[in-house]
């Protein structure tokens, strides 16, 4: 049995770890609250954009724009959203595993795809496996502004317009609830699925005309989808970290209980032994 001092040392160190994980849990909980609000604040914008895009697309079938048309795929772009820091449970692992499996299933050589990555974990994952990284952004704020991601988003959309890539998929963790995040893959470009749920679309006048409006609208729409995914991903990140830290705190609690038990046992054993010794000594004197 370990000595009393050893056990005491372990209890203390576990206690300290617990304090840290507990603090991180609370920090993540408050960050998650804000991230969730950001994601909600973004909804009206994306809904409205979607509504207008779909009403244009529905009202006139001969409207064409490269972003709405499928073309032969020579190169696929993958947009992967991960976090900068670890300690978020399976958050990064899930996205990256899913992403890596997809790549291995669909492509034979590295010339057929390119990766745009958000977050250090994803960046290092790709570097290590020699995946071609076209663009990356590290150190995204916990509560990102549209301005933070704007450049990367528009460059990505530009890559599609320049025919560097012929389709674009996005991988991220969708925020379902505080305890559940789901890895989600969406095809972003070409834009295929823009039927709005409302059914009846308003007939608009277009100033100057539909083509030019689509010219402005579609890149903005695609960028907004990327930003939406990022906000969603951030909310999931904080939620995942909160859950991970909560279970770490719980485990520490359990460990401390076990250790306290064996500490008390050891203490009792020491006392018993001392008494036995004293009694033995007295008996020897008589």
């Amino acid at each position, binding site marked *: 049995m370990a000595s009393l001092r050893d056990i005491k040392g372990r209890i203390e160190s576990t206690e300290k770890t617990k304090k840290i994980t507990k603090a991180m849990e609370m920090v993540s909980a408050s960050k998650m609250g804000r991230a969730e609000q950001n994601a909600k604040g973004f909804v*009206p914008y994306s809904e409205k954009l979607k509504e207008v895009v779909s009403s244009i697309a529905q009202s006139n079938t001969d409207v064409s724009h490269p972003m709405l048309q499928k073309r032969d795929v020579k190169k696929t772009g993958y947009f992967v959203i991960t976090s900068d820091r670890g300690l978020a449970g399976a958050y990064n692992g899930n996205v990256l595993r899913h992403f890596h499996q997809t790549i291995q299933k669909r492509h034979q050589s590295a010339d057929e795809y390119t990766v745009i990555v958000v977050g250090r974990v994803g960046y290092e994952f790709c570097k290590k496996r020699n995946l071609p990284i076209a663009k990356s952004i590290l150190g995204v704020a916990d509560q990102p502004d549209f301005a933070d991601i704007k450049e990367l988003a528009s460059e990505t959309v530009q890559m599609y317009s320049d025919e560097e890539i012929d389709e674009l998929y996005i991988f991220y963790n969708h925020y379902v609830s505080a305890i559940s995040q789901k890895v989600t893959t969406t095809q972003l470009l070409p834009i295929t699925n823009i039927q709005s749920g409302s059914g009846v679309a308003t007939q608009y006048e277009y100033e100057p005309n539909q083509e*030019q*409006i689509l010219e*402005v609208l579609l890149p903005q729409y695609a960028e907004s989808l990327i*930003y939406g995914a990022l906000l969603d991903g951030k909310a999931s990140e904080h939620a995942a970290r909160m859950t991970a830290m909560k279970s770490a705190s719980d485990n520490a609690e359990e460990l401390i209980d076990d250790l306290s038990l064996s500490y008390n046992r050891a203490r009792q054993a020491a006392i018993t032994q001392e008494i036995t010794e004293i009694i033995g000594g007295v008996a020897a004197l008589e």
Partner: protein
Amino acid sequence: MKTLTVSVVTPDGPVLEDDFDMVSCKSENGELGVLPGHIPLVAPLSISAVRLKRENDVTLLAVNGGFLEVQPEKITILAQSAEKPSDIDVERAKKAEERAKQRLQSKQDNVDFHRAELALKRALNRINVTQ
């Protein structure tokens, strides 16, 4: 008197939602004034100030990109950013103006030039709105 409900939405959340008598703004084809009862319309906006009139008050907004969606009683402005004069950091805008001007004078390749021009427009727009 009839009024229009104007809501201004950006990716960072709603900026403003209120009733006004008239909205005038600058679309890519020129000035555009909208009164209540306008037919449904969609128009892209240039980097400019949007003027929202209510009786004798005029509220200004610095809008960057985006477009205007008009319905008879409701106007939605969807922009990548939209700021009220009180939210604008004038110092920052002035610095951005300086930077953009320097970049324009250095004349390198075309992409940079285009971006600097947009940055300059945004900075000037912000400064104008606060004055």
